[in-house]
């Protein structure tokens, strides 16, 4: 134990896909360098511009019937209509397609066939099941 290099609390926490690092253990929370400040300022500028656009539409005296959220439209479009045009058969996609597309069919067909054959055998032999 004494020869172990000192690990940080963030490394010992081991965040993953299911749980994220708490802000208290994240080094970037305490990062006040000018680059980070400039990045945050740019992000704030984008956010403020979007908020202004939204508020102008929201408080318009002659409002449009619906305020369309372009981010929502893009999200819906990307998940539905943009998937097939960007699909490409690669070894990985072909393998996954086989495993998840064809695999369950063959697996359940085999399961049902074996189970029914076994039951048929028991019926023919007159046994209980």
């Amino acid at each position, binding site marked *: 134990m004494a020869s172990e290099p000192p690990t940080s609390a963030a490394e010992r926490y081991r965040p993953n896909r*299911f749980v994220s690092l708490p802000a208290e253990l994240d080094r970037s929370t305490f990062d006040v360098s000018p680059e980070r400040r400039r990045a945050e300022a740019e992000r704030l500028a984008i956010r403020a511009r979007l908020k202004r656009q939204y508020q102008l539409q929201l408080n318009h005296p002659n409002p449009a019937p619906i305020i369309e959220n372009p981010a929502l439209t893009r999200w819906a479009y990307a998940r539905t209509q*943009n998937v097939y045009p960007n699909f*490409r058969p690669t070894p990985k996609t072909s393998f996954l397609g086989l495993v998840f597309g064809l695999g369950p069919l063959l697996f359940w067909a085999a399961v049902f066939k074996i189970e029914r054959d076994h039951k048929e055998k028991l019926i023919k032999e007159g046994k209980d099941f």
Partner: protein
Amino acid sequence: MAVARLRGVLWQRAAARLQDARTVVAAPPGARAASQMTQDMLPGPYPRTPEERAAAAKKYNMRVEDYEPYPDDGFGYGDYPKLPDKSHHERDPWYRWDQQDMRHNWGEPMHWDFDMYIRNRVDTSPTVVPWHIMRRHFFIFVGTMLVMFVIGGMYPSYMPVGPKQYPFNDLYLERGGDPNKEPPVVTHYEI
């Protein structure tokens, strides 16, 4: 010969009529698009050049440095940005979002799995105990219980019991014994 020519003319006339009908249905005069967005504002293919990346970042209202598309594996993501996998439970509840329940601002790029990360569903908030420790404790407990139950099923152990003792000569009449005959005497005791 004449029949074939007639049929050919009729076919061409039908095709022309169909084409006219199609243009009429496609965009009648005075029609408005359902969305105000043009095709260049919608998601497109994976960006290859730095200019395409900058244009995509601008399209999604992100900084060029923040914009990171999904890897081009042919999975169909296109140029959609890869945002951090954090659920909306982690977003500030006290900030005045445009949509307070969704904790989402108008125009802000939505995560690909947005509908999974809403506050009714998956929660990726940091836990008090780290995940790998919780996972380890869970599997140790469940594994031990399963092993014990399986062993207990294979080698069951009960309190020692003797055979059940019934009255009335082992229920001779109830079990269909002949009432005219003398029942066999059964004693369950020893003095």
